[in-house]
């Protein structure tokens, strides 16, 4: 028997799965994005770049793309600001407390995104817990608008995605020599300087890797923006969904999806290459 056959056979099931579940739909979507669409006639077998032209030239779509990436950047920055210190505090905890806190941080991942987002809707709605409470203690007269706002989406997405940042930073902290902090202290550095000059630069690869995950997941997020943003505050993913299911303009929806995919791939690979180049000389 050919020596190479067994590995191929073993990989077969996974290959079939990926081809049917991922490659085929992707190719079909890509092909669909070149079709024409007529409100009365539906999808027509005429091909061209007009869907892409529409996405690229219409300021309506510009706004949606800008909003999507704006949210993605905000969520990534917030996750880094919250997640990195969180991981560092975990790192310095005693082992019993650490496992308890890790559980609390990772626990939300066990709950469906939809359920968690609906929970946020209950909290931040005009008749939600937060507004009702603030009104009842007399701090505000009319409810603060948080539902259907960009801020609401950002807050909920940070909650959903911060565990990924914590895990990523946590992994790099494991590789940190615990004595470097003491070494820096003995050389006269303050605790803050130790953090800024010694710990942070060393966990930066973890922060950057975590940022990549959070950014990619936010830019393509659907459920949270759909529930908390409603039908009017759209991001790219919800726009593609609406083109498919409301307008029934499948080719345009496909074109939007393809543009989002390509944009994400470009951002992520460029970023990854930058990170790898920057740290190749320093870390193994």
């Amino acid at each position, binding site marked *: 028997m050919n020596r190479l056959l067994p590995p191929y056979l073993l990989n077969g099931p996974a290959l079939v799965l990926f081809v049917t579940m991922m490659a085929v739909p992707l190719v079909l979507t890509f092909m669909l994005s070149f079709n024409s669409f007529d409100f009365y006639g539906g999808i027509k077998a005429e091909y061209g770049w007009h869907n892409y032209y529409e996405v690229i030239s219409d300021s309506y779509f510009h706004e949606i793309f800008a909003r999507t990436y704006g949210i993605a950047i905000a969520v990534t920055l917030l996750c880094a600001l919250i997640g990195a210190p969180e991981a560092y505090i975990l790192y310095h905890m005693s082992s019993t407390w650490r496992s308890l806190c890790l559980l609390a941080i990772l626990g939300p991942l066990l709950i469906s995104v939809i359920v968690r987002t609906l929970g946020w809707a209950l909290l931040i709605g005009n008749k939600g817990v937060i507004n009702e409470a603030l009104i009842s203690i007399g701090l505000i007269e009319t409810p603060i608008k948080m539902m259907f706002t960009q801020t609401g989406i950002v807050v909920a997405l940070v909650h959903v995605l911060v565990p990924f940042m914590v895990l990523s930073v946590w992994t790099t902290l494991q590789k940190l020599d615990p004595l470097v902090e*003491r*070494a820096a*202290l003995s050389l006269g550095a303050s605790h803050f300087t130790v953090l800024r*000059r010694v710990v942070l630069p060393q966990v930066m690869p973890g922060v950057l890797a975590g940022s990549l995950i959070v950014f990619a997941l936010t830019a393509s997020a659907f459920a949270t923006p759909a529930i908390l943003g409603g039908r009017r505050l759209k991001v790219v993913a919800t726009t593609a969904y609406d083109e498919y299911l409301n307008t029934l303009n499948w080719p345009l929806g496909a074109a939007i999806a393809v543009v989002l995919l390509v944009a994400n791939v470009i951002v992520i690979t460029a970023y990854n290459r930058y990170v790898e180049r920057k740290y190749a000389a*320093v*870390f193994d």
Partner: protein
Amino acid sequence: MSFLVLKNISKRYGPVAAVEDFSLDVEKGEFISLLGPSGCGKTTTLQMIAGFEEPTAGSISVDGRDMTSVPPNARDIGIVFQSYALFPHMTVADNVAFGLEMRNVPKQERQQRVAETLSMVGLEEFAGRFPKALSGGQRQRVALARAIVIKPQLLLLDEPLSALDAKIRESMQIELRNIQHTVGVTTILVTHDQAEAMAMSDRIAVMNKARLAQLGAPFEIYESPGDSFTSNFLGSTNMFEGKVNSASDGNLSISCAGVELSVPGQAKTGEVVTLGIRPEKIALVGAGEGLLNATVHTRIFLGTSWLYQIDSELGRMSVTLQNTGRDVALEGDTVGLNWQREAVRVLREEQVA
């Protein structure tokens, strides 16, 4: 008053004492080793001097100033860690410059001092490299340079050579000693390696079970160990028990397993004492010519010397003989054992904390 004074310091974790009532006076410029097996409290002592641990009792002062609860970043102490703890994201030069930067030394002087220190440890060509690209020995030198460039009041070395292989370790011992002499910094070395402690230090503080077992110059401790622990930890010792038959004027007559020995020392008549003799102080002579007869059990050739295991009336004994180029007694031979009267030491029993 001495430069570094540790006064009755103790460190307890709950009921467990890591260090118990430890006192030590170190003179300026002195090189002292804390020597002991793992868990004897030597590293805890070092960490208290560095300020990473606060003593439960007692006080630490440097140059007359009480340091007991001064935080580590205000103590002006250079430390070389066992793992070196270099900053992996900084170049060699930046690693060395870090302490100067923290002291706000102006840039020009900083660069000059970094260059001087790097050339002292022989790494001037490696200034731009990252620690990842260095060998173990080179990293060790960077760690040393980083600790001494700040001209600290005290230099603490925490098992600095234990991660290096034997050959480099030996040459680093000599180099470290030379650098310490040049810089003149008061140095405390923590080690479990008795050869390292003896090779490098002015004085050795032997620690056992959280306490100071003995303090003295290497030769002094080796030649007159106070108790059975020190005697066995520094080099090796043949030990046997005997009963004092008569004591007069610093001379003891002791019978050990039927052999009558004359030994210098102080003890009471009728007392049971432990005697020790170093393997290299025993000479092999012809059968019947020595103090007692014995049979060679095994012999091992070590290059510079022979190591014999010999069965005598006093039990199994180790003997080392210089390799003088001649072949000596074979396994199974009957030989005589001989030694100078003064070579035998009366040892106190190991103190139990």
